[in-house]
């Protein structure tokens, strides 16, 4: 792309410039000895064409919407349609959450995103001993189809796409969604949405696992298969790096471990006899938008290009739609502070802008009170407005991948891809991601990064405005924050009791027995059994109880 003679000339000029810089440094040194990205990649004073001298435009960047998709997965990107503004929400009861969803849709968000409480995420009903104190706290409590019907009351499932952050019991919640849609007269093939359904990152970084790896992979691939056949507009998985990053990983590790997880899923599905050209179209991803603005933009581009190469070269995929890394982004919660929380609005804006310049398909922006509690209506509105202002006022959406061609951005995109590939190779040599997780390798890498970062904050090398610099003496502790009514737990217990009295318990017994038998046979796709069970108003806890008996429970590999 660059004339070698010109490059030599530039290099010669650069050397002379370096000498002039040395003189400047004697008068005024730079702010620090070493400059790095947020993730520790060394950053030079200036980037030149020479840094990307081997860049081949068509090979490395290509056109938007075409292999290797570096510049984006659609050929009109935001000129065609903005990313989906999809705020993660849910708390207390289905009634409360339904209200919040309607509020958000009224305020202009364009897709739903359901946050479930921990008992629901871990397959426990609200009256289970392990659910004490947790019901409705981090998301909505869903014990049965009845709750799900209330959750989507008045929301047309043929018109709204819904993302559900649910992993170990994803198949069950998906079955409930399909059943609710059916009651609305909406067929599965009309449904649009996503289930997170990414168990590997649960073992690594998030912790809401239930079953051991083998049966978990079975459930996941059952979902891929059922989706391809019956719910073709649905993203059957959202392979996530967000949580890996939140747990403390670097940007490189975020890409590497996410794609390594993805490789494990593709391999498992192929082993089951599924065609990557088919299920590959409905894999989706979920990344973090962290602080280092330019590194994040480069990260998204690197991830797209690397995934496309992996699908094409490693898995011999020929369908371009199955090579596309389509992703949702959330701004990094762990970067937000409890001190001077209004500053978080600025952090989120920068992070959201990085996601947009990185070409995300969908975006959640955190509310400024993130470090204190779940969002109030006011704080989530500001978060949504952040996206709307970027979309309608900033102008960055009017052309595709505007930062392409920047020497630094292209160099950093290459560097992140290169380093991520090295990690993937290492994991391959270990025997793949499942082995690497079992060995604790991934968890250790993440933790080490987390600890190193903490040390940097404590010695002042990493500045957190308002926390270790620019603090104020008196923080305002009287803000209005969201509190989940502890009565929710008692309310859910009552609802469960009523449900169990009103439903056909013989039918429930029968469907659970059918499920048990089917679960014991690896060759059976369990989705139809889940759909029957939820329609009979078997509770989530009862269904997961059967699976717990058949599959067993995962025991954490504690790595410190």
């Amino acid at each position, binding site marked *: 792309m660059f004339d070698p003679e010109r490059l030599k000339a530039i290099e010669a000029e650069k050397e002379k410039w370096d000498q002039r810089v040395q003189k400047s440094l004697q008068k005024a040194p730079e702010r620090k000895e070493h400059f790095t990205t947020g993730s520790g990649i060394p950053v030079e004073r200036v980037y030149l064409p020479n840094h990307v001298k081997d860049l081949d435009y068509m090979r490395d960047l290509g056109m938007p919407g075409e292999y290797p998709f570096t510049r984006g997965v659609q050929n009109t990107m935001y000129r065609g349609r903005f990313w989906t503004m999809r705020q993660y929400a849910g708390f207390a009861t289905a009634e409360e959450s339904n209200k919040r969803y309607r509020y958000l849709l009224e305020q202009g968000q364009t897709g739903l995103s359901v946050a479930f409480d921990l008992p629901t*995420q871990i397959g426990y009903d609200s009256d289970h001993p*392990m*659910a004490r*104190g947790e019901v409705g706290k981090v998301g909505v409590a869903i014990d049965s189809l009845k709750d799900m019907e209330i959750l989507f009351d008045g929301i047309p499932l043929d018109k709204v796409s819904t993302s559900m952050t649910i992993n170990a019991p994803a198949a069950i919640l998906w079955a409930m969604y399909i059943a609710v849609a059916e009651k609305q007269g909406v067929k599965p093939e009309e449904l649009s949405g996503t289930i997170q359904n990414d168990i590997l990152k649960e073992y690594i970084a998030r912790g809401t696992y239930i079953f051991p790896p083998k049966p978990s992979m079975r459930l996941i691939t059952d979902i891929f298969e059922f989706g391809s056949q019956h719910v073709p507009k649905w993203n059957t998985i959202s392979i996530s790096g967000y949580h890996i990053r939140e747990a*403390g990983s670097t940007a490189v590790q975020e890409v590497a471990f996410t794609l390594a997880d993805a490789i494990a899923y593709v391999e498992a599905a192929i082993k089951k006899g599924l065609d990557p050209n088919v299920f590959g179209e409905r894999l989706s991803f979920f990344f973090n938008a962290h602080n280092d603005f330019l590194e994040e933009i480069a990260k998204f581009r690197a991830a797209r290009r690397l995934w496309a190469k992996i699908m094409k070269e490693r898995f011999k995929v020929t369908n371009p739609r199955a090579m596309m890394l389509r992703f949702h982004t959330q701004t990094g919660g762990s970067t937000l*502070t409890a001190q001077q929380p209004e500053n978080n609005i600025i952090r989120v804006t920068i992070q959201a802008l990085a996601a947009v310049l990185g070409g995300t398909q969908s975006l959640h922006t955190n509310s400024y009170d993130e470090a204190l*509690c779940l969002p109030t209506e006011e704080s989530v509105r500001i978060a949504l407005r952040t996206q709307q202002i970027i979309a309608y006022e900033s102008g960055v959406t009017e052309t595709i991948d505007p930062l392409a061609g920047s020497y630094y951005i292209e160099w950093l995109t290459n560097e992140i891809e290169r380093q991520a590939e090295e990690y993937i190779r290492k994991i391959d040599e270990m025997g793949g991601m499942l082995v690497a997780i079992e060995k604790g390798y991934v968890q250790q890498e993440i*933790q080490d990064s987390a600890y190193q970062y903490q040390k940097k904050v404590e010695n002042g090398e990493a500045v957190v405005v308002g926390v270790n610099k620019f603090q104020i003496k008196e923080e305002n502790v009287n803000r209005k*924050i969201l509190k989940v009514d502890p009565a929710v737990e008692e309310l859910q217990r009552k609802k469960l009791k009523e449900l169990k009295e009103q439903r056909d318990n013989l039918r429930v017994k029968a469907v659970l027995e059918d499920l048990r038998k089917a679960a014991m046979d690896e060759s059976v796709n369990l989705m139809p059994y889940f759909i029957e069970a939820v329609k009979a108003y078997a509770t989530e806890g009862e269904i997961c109880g059967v699976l717990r008996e058949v599959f067993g429970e995962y025991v954490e590999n504690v790595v410190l």
Partner: protein
Amino acid sequence: MSEERKIRVVIAKPGLDGHDRGAKVVARALRDAGMEVIYTGLRQTPEQIVETAIQEDVDAIGLSILSGAHEYYFSKVIELLKERGAEDIIVFGGGVIPPEDVPRLLEIGAKAIFGPGTPTSQTVEWLKKAVEEKRRKESSVS
């Protein structure tokens, strides 16, 4: 005071919350400061935490809770320690705990809550002093 016995701490994740970055960072910082740390991993019941603490003969228990269930778990753990006659074990913690909830936790019997942004050095120093004071009281009683 001579340091005959290292400070022993259990760092625990009670309940269903899976966010362990903070717990692990604190555990490592305490370990780097010369303490003996037992990190329990996730999904601990209050019974398990108290049992581990007693078995391991620790000076303190640190609870990490980001799920909003803090009042429940702090009170359960402290209650159980009382029942088992182990109320001399110092209970502290951190996580996502709104400042307005902290007084209640201290009332229940937690000795300190370290919120987001607390440097680990602060936790280390506090714990050293708290254990020193505890041991001084114990030796004066005996």
